[in-house]
């Protein structure tokens, strides 16, 4: 399994990028070249140099340090938002699958459809205008949109597993609803959920960047890739690199998580398993 | 008409088919019987030039004077569907679910440039009628899912015989069907062979089905020929221990309360088979020689590739 994984190009590339982003985020907890919050107006809008690897912004803050802390921020949003989606979504999906065709199932799935009918970012903006801007509220908004995604995936996969004989065999053995889900269904759909989670993770990072860009996500002075982009807009003519670096950071990590998801999908698919 | 000589198929160096030779005359039916892993389906795919990419075929497959293994894919297309028809176990996977069955039959005819679309559709109706589909003129515009399993298999047969091939390869064509439907399909295949003169290579795991359709039988195990001969003789007095074991394992004719005589063990993976006789290890008569050397054919009432064949009666 591990040998096969290491020969899978998109998995390997995705894993490396993901590890790099996670490593950077973790490192920022202990060390950054400069304190990303400290402004040195004298040093504003410096191009990349030995002192400031990626230059400085309009307040003289070190861009590299800000990107590092921004990575931590993006990861935090991703983890919590996807975590909300997985726990609530999978639970709802299981409840729906268990009572397939029942009123409860209908209610859950229609609620999911309802959420899907709205453009995610637009509704996130709506939610944030109600709850007020801020990173915690952004996480909640993004998390809410992850719930129906996981509910659907989990329900569909669970129904497929439930149609198989070993579920019937478990019932014949005397197991009932909850313990069948715990013992048989969850382990068999875990792979699919993990794949979906890595894709949703990429989307969550993108959404956080988008909301922060609009100024309703992560609030200053906490650095965020999206807000860095927004700030850089004003100085696009003078210092175009200011926009390019956070843009690359976003693109790079989204790509990484997507590749990881692709790779995992291939690796966890029982159909491609070695015979 | 079809002569397979020393066919060897390997997958990354592991032999899947070992030195297989057999022949088939015009209008004849040959039954190929074997369990899973015997290589019976691979043999069919090798003849059609449809082996999975990782497999290598050596030897000769001579069909109407041409070695098919030498042909590239473009040249092979002139044979596939045109001169050699094929039907599979599960017609649902071989039929395109989004096209009407008449169109699918006609497509083969148009593809091989035999007739134009209008004529081909008319021919499709005639073929459906020929394979025993009732109300054929209405059924041409049915979709595969609207048909029963037996009807789908009839459509497959109509498709396979549309270009009047001289060879039909049938890979377990009735294994997914109920016995009553199976019986009808077997009758149909026999009629078509007799009336259209199509030679038939009939692949099955079921000796009783083979007994019904083929005059000659070839028994495969682990990619090698075990025994071949007249079907009646082979079933009545098998000479190879494997054929004998296979027959003894059937419950047919055993009275209640008596024990069956299974072949011990299970079919090992291809890479674990002995270089000599693949049946070595499960064979009650095998010895060291069998493990290391491929057994030579022993010609008597049947031909058995065995160092210790039974005496024919």
């Amino acid at each position, binding site marked *: 399994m591990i040998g096969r994984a290491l020969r899978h190009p998109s998995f390997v590339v995705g894993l490396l990028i993901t590890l790099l982003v996670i490593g950077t985020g973790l490192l920022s907890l202990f060390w950054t070249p400069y304190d990303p919050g400290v402004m040195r107006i004298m040093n504003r809008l410096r191009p990349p140099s030995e002192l400031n690897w990626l230059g400085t912004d309009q307040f003289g803050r070190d861009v590299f340090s800000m990107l590092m802390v921004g990575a931590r921020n993006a990861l935090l949003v991703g983890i919590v938002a996807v975590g909300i989606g997985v726990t609530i979504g999978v639970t709802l999906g299981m409840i729906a699958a268990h009572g397939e065709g029942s009123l409860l199932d209908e209610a859950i799935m229609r609620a999911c459809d309802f959420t899907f009918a709205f453009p995610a970012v637009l509704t996130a903006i709506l939610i944030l205008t109600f709850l007020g801007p801020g990173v915690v509220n952004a996480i909640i908004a993004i998390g809410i949109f992850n719930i129906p995604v996981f509910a659907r995936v989990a329900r569909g996969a669970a129904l497929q597993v439930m149609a*198989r*004989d*070993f579920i*019937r*065999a*478990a*019932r*014949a*053995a*005397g*197991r*009932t609803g909850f313990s069948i889900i715990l*013992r*048989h269904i969850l*382990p*068999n759909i875990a792979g699919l959920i993990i794949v979906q989670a890595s894709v949703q993770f990429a989307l969550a990072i993108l959404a956080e960047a988008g909301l922060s860009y609009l100024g309703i996500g992560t609030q200053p002075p906490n650095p965020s890739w999206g807000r860095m982009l927004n700030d850089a807009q004003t100085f696009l003519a003078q210092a175009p690199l200011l926009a390019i670096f956070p843009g690359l950071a976003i693109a790079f990590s989204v790509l990484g998580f997507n590749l990881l998801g692709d790779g995992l999908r291939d690796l966890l698919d*029982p159909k491609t*398993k070695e015979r | 008409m079809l002569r397979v000589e020393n066919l060897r198929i390997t997958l990354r160096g592991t032999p899947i088919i070992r030195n297989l030779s057999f022949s088939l005359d015009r209008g004849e039916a040959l039954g190929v019987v074997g*369990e*899973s892993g015997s290589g019976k389906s691979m043999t069919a795919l090798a003849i059609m030039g449809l082996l999975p990419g990782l497999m290598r075929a050596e030897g000769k497959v001579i069909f109407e004077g041409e070695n098919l293994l030498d042909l590239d894919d473009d040249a092979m297309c002139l044979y596939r569907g045109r001169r050699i028809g094929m039907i599979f176990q599960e017609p649902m996977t071989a039929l395109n679910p989004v096209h009407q069955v008449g169109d699918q039959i006609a497509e083969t005819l148009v593809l091989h440039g035999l007739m134009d679309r209008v004529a081909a559709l008319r021919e499709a109706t005639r073929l459906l009628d020929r394979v025993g589909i009732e109300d054929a003129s209405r059924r041409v515009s049915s979709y595969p899912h609207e048909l029963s*399993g037996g009807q789908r298999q009839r459509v497959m047969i109509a498709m396979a015989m549309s270009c009047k091939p001289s060879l039909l390869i049938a890979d377990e064509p009735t294994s997914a069907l*109920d*016995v*009553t439907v*199976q*019986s009808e399909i*077997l009758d149909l295949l026999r009629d078509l062979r007799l009336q259209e003169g199509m030679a038939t290579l009939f692949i099955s*795991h*079921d*000796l*009783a*089905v083979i*007994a*019904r359709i083929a005059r000659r039988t070839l028994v495969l195990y682990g990619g090698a020929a075990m025994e071949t001969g007249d079907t009646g003789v082979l*079933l*009545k007095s098998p000479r190879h221990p494997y054929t004998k*074991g*296979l*027959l*003894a*394992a*059937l*419950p*047919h*004719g*055993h*009275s*209640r309360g008596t*024990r*069956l*005589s*299974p*072949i*011990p063990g*299970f*079919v090992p993976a291809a890479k674990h088979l002995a270089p000599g006789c693949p049946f070595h290890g499960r064979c009650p008569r095998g010895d060291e020689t069998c493990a290391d050397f491929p057994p030579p054919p022993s010609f008597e009432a049947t031909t058995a590739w065995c160092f210790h064949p039974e005496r024919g009666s």
Partner: protein
Amino acid sequence: MTASNPLLLEALNLSRFYRLPRRGLFGARPVLKAVDNVSLTLRDGETLGIVGESGSGKSTLARMLMALEQPDRGEVSWMGENISRLSPLALRSRRHEIQMVFQDPYGSLDPRMRVLDSVAEPLDVARPDLSAELRRDAVLEILERVGLTAEALRRYPHQFSGGQRQRIAIARALITRPRILVADEPVSALDVSIQAQILNLLSDLRAEFGLALIFISHDLGIVRYLADRVMVMHHGKVVEEGESEAVFSAPAHDYTRALLAAMPKLDE
């Protein structure tokens, strides 16, 4: 021999209907009578064969006998108790008496569970108090009985051949020492040489455990070989029923005759 034995399983006028999708916008939904008014009895130590083609309702019937599916009409009794009157808890506590072996040895074992846990599952439900050691011993004992070794315990289903998996499935069904075993096409997916091994195993175990067996198959030869009594099903109905030898040597119903005639034989 069996007429006086205690009645283990009884089904009375069982019916199960499926609603099909409606044809057209306003048409009524057609109803498929999967099982139509079927009654049966199974006595201690007896083997009942159920024969039928696909769509005959034999698998639906098996699931209703196992209380895996609710009948629309009729009732099922295990050891004289009407199971539809039992509470879910009471039903669960009686499941160890009646177990099942499925057709597809690839689908009936959870691919993510070790053989030890798969085989132990019915025991876990019946005896949750069992120590890990006793549980393992019980699994090992039954695995050895079906011809597998301790080596199998820690392995996963995909590491076994079809025949071995069916042995594992049988071990699992027998670990609670049931009195009734329902086998739904247990050898249809297996190679001929392996079929005979599993059939021998089943008849040995039947004798050893004193099992009453319901053996469902489309293969008349196998049913004739194994069953004392046989029931022929067609389109959800029982068309013929009787002592196995009598039904096969002198079939009374047209459908049974057609089936026997269609069965390919070796001496044709």
